[in-house]
């Protein structure tokens, strides 16, 4: 029984990590309806900035997180200006509906991510960076017979804060209202007088803030910080988002947790090399039975 409980706990902690990433990712997708391929790099940049701060000033962890979030917001702003804004310059109907335009933001964010990752690699090398050992948040904690680590508690707390904070932001504030309006119908929001540009920038800033914080915490959790660290979490976040139904952030979180659980529990039954297969198989099954994702709210098509 202990064994299963332990695997379950590990799965939950894995899921929370994916959820951290999925939250920011879903927020951005929800607003612009485009996949942000560069979110994984924002995550990585967050981790590297955090590492820089730690090795330079060695401040307490909270300060590092706050600084990283600020850096993340800044990067998000830059990302939006460079990779997404230039493609909104065409406002004629044909271009708005053109698929080619939407795919082009996909590619521009991909190009941005390539440049960012290669840049980090040139600056730091592609190996795992050495992290000062006292900042690694992986001191074990014994909880009712299963072992978790301090980092699990921190990540869980942060995920909860993010979720609750976002829900509050989206439903109780003007900013949130404009975000929801733009994600529902950008042209309509513009007609109603909402400054779509500023709303989009805000969304990117918030989403990237969360992504950067996620990168820092996961980097400290595993003690593994390297330029291509955002690639796999980016894919997992994407999968979680779609599985959850594109528009629902809590949905994405739940699906991220399901993904983590399925990976960990699968390892208990089959060799771990097939564990990813189980996660993807799960996704396909979900999509076959729930073509709009688990919590999708029948999005208007095109």
């Amino acid at each position, binding site marked *: 029984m202990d064994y299963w409980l332990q695997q379950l706990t590990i799965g939950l902690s894995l899921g929370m990590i994916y959820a951290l990433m999925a939250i920011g990712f879903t927020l951005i997708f929800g607003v612009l309806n485009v996949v942000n391929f560069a979110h994984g790099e924002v995550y990585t940049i967050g981790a590297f900035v955090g590492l820089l701060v730690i090795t330079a000033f060695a401040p307490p962890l909270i300060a590092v997180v706050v600084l990283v979030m600020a850096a993340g917001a800044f990067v998000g702003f830059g990302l939006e200006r460079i990779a997404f804004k230039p493609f909104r310059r065409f406002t004629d109907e044909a271009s708005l509906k053109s698929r080619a*335009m939407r795919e082009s933001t996909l590619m521009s964010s991909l190009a941005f991510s390539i440049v960012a990752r290669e*840049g980090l690699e040139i600056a730091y090398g592609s190996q795992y960076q050495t992290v000062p050992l006292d900042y690694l948040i992986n001191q074990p904690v014994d909880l009712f017979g299963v072992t978790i680590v301090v980092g699990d508690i921190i990540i869980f707390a942060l995920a909860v804060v993010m979720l609750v904070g976002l829900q509050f932001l989206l439903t109780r504030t003007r900013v949130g209202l404009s975000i929801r309006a733009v994600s529902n119908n950008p042209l309509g929001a513009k007609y109603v007088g909402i400054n779509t540009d500023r709303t989009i920038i805000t969304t990117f800033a918030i989403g990237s803030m969360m992504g950067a914080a996620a990168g820092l915490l996961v980097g400290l959790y595993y003690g593994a910080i390297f330029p291509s660290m955002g690639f796999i979490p980016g894919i997992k976040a994407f999968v979680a988002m779609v599985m959850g139904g594109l528009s629902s952030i809590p949905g994405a979180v739940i699906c991220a947790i399901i993904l983590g659980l399925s990976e960990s529990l699968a390892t208990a039954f089959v060799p771990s090399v097939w564990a990813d297969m189980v996660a993807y198989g799960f996704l396909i099954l979900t999509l076959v039975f729930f073509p709009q994702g688990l919590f999708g709210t029948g999005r208007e098509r095109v």
Partner: protein
Amino acid sequence: MSDNRFSASLIVAVLLVLLFAIVPLILGWLGRSYLYQVANIAMIFALLAASLHLVTGVAGLLHLGHAAFYGIGAYTAALLATEAGWPFLATLPTAGIAAAFFAVLVALPTMRLVSIYFAVATLAIGQMIYLVLLNWVEVTKGPNGILLFGGLEIFGYDLSAPHLAYFVVAMVTAVSIWIIHRLSHSYYGNALRSLREDDQCADALGIDTVRLKIEAFTLSAFFAGIAGGLWAHTTGYISPPDFNFATSILILAMVVVGGLGSLPGALVGALLLILLPEALRVIGDIRNITVGIVMFLAILLLPKGIIGEVSALDLVRRQLAGAWKRVDGQGIGWR
């Protein structure tokens, strides 16, 4: 009118002469097998980009798992050549058919998905196929890869040398691309385009959207499989990392940067993304970041692609002169 048709076939004739006569002459004169190798790789990826263009550019289905079918084709060809001793002429079409077969299997449950859901499903499927290639060691030899000792043999003549293989690859690629071209510039291609523009509308018009999607998907997988067979025989060694997600993204980038919806665009994109990193080797370690910047600039300045569909359709429009005329500078009908 006869002028326009003449000019179109002139373009094709020029391209063929270029491909089969001028380029080999230049490469032969320069005498470096390296250039032949790069040319072969460029052609294989041109075929991959063309096949992805069929499903993503024309039918509008964002496909994130294309490299997996490329891999199935390569492994089929390699396994048949090494385990069963089949000759190249037999393994190549079988590679295509095997890839198409798996595409049908995969397409059936997922065809009712739309846009981003379909994209994620193809991502998952691509990853699953990759994992099988990597871990099913009994059949695919897993990470050890497969070594082909036979190389490229046709009717007993050994054509493995790069300058001879060039002609084989060029022939197969040219024929395949011609087929894809005919498919996309026809009423069938129009039907596929209607899927991309508005599939609910197409459905209402009586077009069997599900069947069309499955067909487009399968056809693209067939050609990807052929490309895989070419790769296996010309390189002589294949292993799972050749067919991972990053490769799928590379092929997608070729199609989008070159111009979503235009076949010449896909070819240009493929040539660009294969030849540019090679050409930039001289600048050393910053070449990848330079490729990223070039890609970004290409998309920024030409968001509809280097040869966007618009210009490609203009070419076609001129061919059917008169049917879709521009009036007062305003295009009507197709964009």
